[in-house]
């Protein structure tokens, strides 16, 4: 039991962090809400006026919003699918007896530590360039027509780059979970004559359910706001083909200088993220009680 003295001390130690986080969260958020109700353009200073929900109506009915919402969902969904569907077999493979496993693990985890601007530019130029990129050369080797990634399939290109960055994260978490799996359970199943596939379906996969959920939620939080990869490669184009919600809001704020509209968009993004966060916080919270 904590004494009264330690409780008081505890509270005063906790206070700075709580107060700072509270200010950091509430001040910008309140300002965003306020700006969202204004006609407010940085190009036209002094013309601010209250417009109610007009910005929301404009933002939500803007064709660019629907396009970028769709792009956001495609990007998040595809990267999640790729990283998990490749991450599970990869983690299973690394869980096998492998000579030099530590070194292989280093190679697999490396992309996660590469800053987004570097991975995007290296992929765009060195690998995906339609004439001199390595992929173009490989395509020619097998007699295929090289793909002009950033003109013909810009979203696929972005998805590939982002998946490459996040595959290590999914793999590492799933591998960590696999290594905590009770070996004896698997042994017992094997002795009872269970085939590898049924061991996988009935023992391994249920064990992975939770880490997979965690991977999905955490990746979603980050993938909803993918920005740098788009910023340095496509600039959201061609047209709106690679504009996600984050990039759309950025361009309204710092390219078109439409503060009111960008703020309304920002709030929409906050709502979307909160839906995901709700589930993540519940899962993590359950873990706290253990």
């Amino acid at each position: 039991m904590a004494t009264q003295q330690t409780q008081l001390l505890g509270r005063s130690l906790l206070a700075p962090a709580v107060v700072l986080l509270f200010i950091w969260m509430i001040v910008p958020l309140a300002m965003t809400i306020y700006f969202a109700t204004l006609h407010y353009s940085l190009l036209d200073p002094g013309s601010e006026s209250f417009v109610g929900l007009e910005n929301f109506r404009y933002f939500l009915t803007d064709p660019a919003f629907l396009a970028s919402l769709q792009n956001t969902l495609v990007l998040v969904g595809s990267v999640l699918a790729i990283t998990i569907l490749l991450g599970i077999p990869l983690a299973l493979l690394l869980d096998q007896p492998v000579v030099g496993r530590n070194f292989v693990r280093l190679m697999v985890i490396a992309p996660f530590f590469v800053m987004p601007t570097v991975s995007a530019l290296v992929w765009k130029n060195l690998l995906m360039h339609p004439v001199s990129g390595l992929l173009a050369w490989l395509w020619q080797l097998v007699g295929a027509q090289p793909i002009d990634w950033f003109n013909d399939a810009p979203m696929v290109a972005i998805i590939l780059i982002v998946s490459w960055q996040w595959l290590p994260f999914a793999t590492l978490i799933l591998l960590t979970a696999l290594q905590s799996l009770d070996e004896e359970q698997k042994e017992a199943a094997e002795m009872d004559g269970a085939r590898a596939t049924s061991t996988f379906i009935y023992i391994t996969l249920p064990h992975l359910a939770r880490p997979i959920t965690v991977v999905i939620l955490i990746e979603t939080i980050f993938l909803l706001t993918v920005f740098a990869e788009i910023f340095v490669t496509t600039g959201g184009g061609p047209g709106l083909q690679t504009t996600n919600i984050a990039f759309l809001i950025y361009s309204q704020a710092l390219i078109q200088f439409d503060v009111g509209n960008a703020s309304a968009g920002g709030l929409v993004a906050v709502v979307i993220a909160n839906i995901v966060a709700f589930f993540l916080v519940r899962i993590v919270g359950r873990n706290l009680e253990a």
Partner: protein
Amino acid sequence: MARMVTNKRVVVSTAAAWLFGFLIFFPILWMILTSFKTELDAFAIPPSFLFFHWTTENYATVQERSDYFHHAINSIIIAGGSTLVATLIAVPAAWSMAFAPTKRTKDILLWMLSTKMMPPVGVLVPIYLIYRDVGLLDSRVGLVLILCFGNLPIVIWMLFTYFKEIPKDILEAARMDGATIGRELIYVLAPMAVPGIASTLLLNFILAWNEAFWTLNLSTSQAAPLTVFIASYSSPEGLFWAKLSAASTLAIAPILVLGWFSQKQLVRGLTFGAVK
């Protein structure tokens, strides 16, 4: 009892693991190789993998033309500064929640976590305007502050999960022996807390080093860290692949080395203790 592992199985899984590991690592390897080529070799088709004219001139050019060290120092100051400040605020908070928990501790922890879920674009506009008005745009102080707040929840969470594992009995024993709270902190807690604090510093330094939303939006030249420095290569002029590769290699090398040491903390820190 260990399961019988046949040699054949080891050979197959080893070969497969090395193949996939190599494939995943390949873009980085290719970037490093390209950084030692001449611009003509970097562009050549068919590409040469090892037998090209090795040169280090790109590294010299990158430093000369775009002042790598200026940006590297910015990265160190911004990532290091924000991590240090966040840790200074977080250690007392995590300590108090781990050792003197109240009924509300869990709610506070979850609330802190939820602030991390706020998408940065949601508050881009007000932060940008505040920074413009108080002159923090393109300043290192401004970036230190924003990354500090952004990572504070993760820092508190990581420290909390580490502190929680320190046995509480040891504190009581110290108290019985007449130790004051100050002495308790310095002689009993600190030595046990140092490994956790070190891992937290490491992981957050990496996260801050690679942060590419606020750094791209709030800095241009003076305070620009390496993320922005690399982004300046997105508008190409002539042959630039070898130089881009050299700049990129320089930008990721330090963090790749640190990152390899932090694998275990990475899982724990990024999943908020949900996967260990």
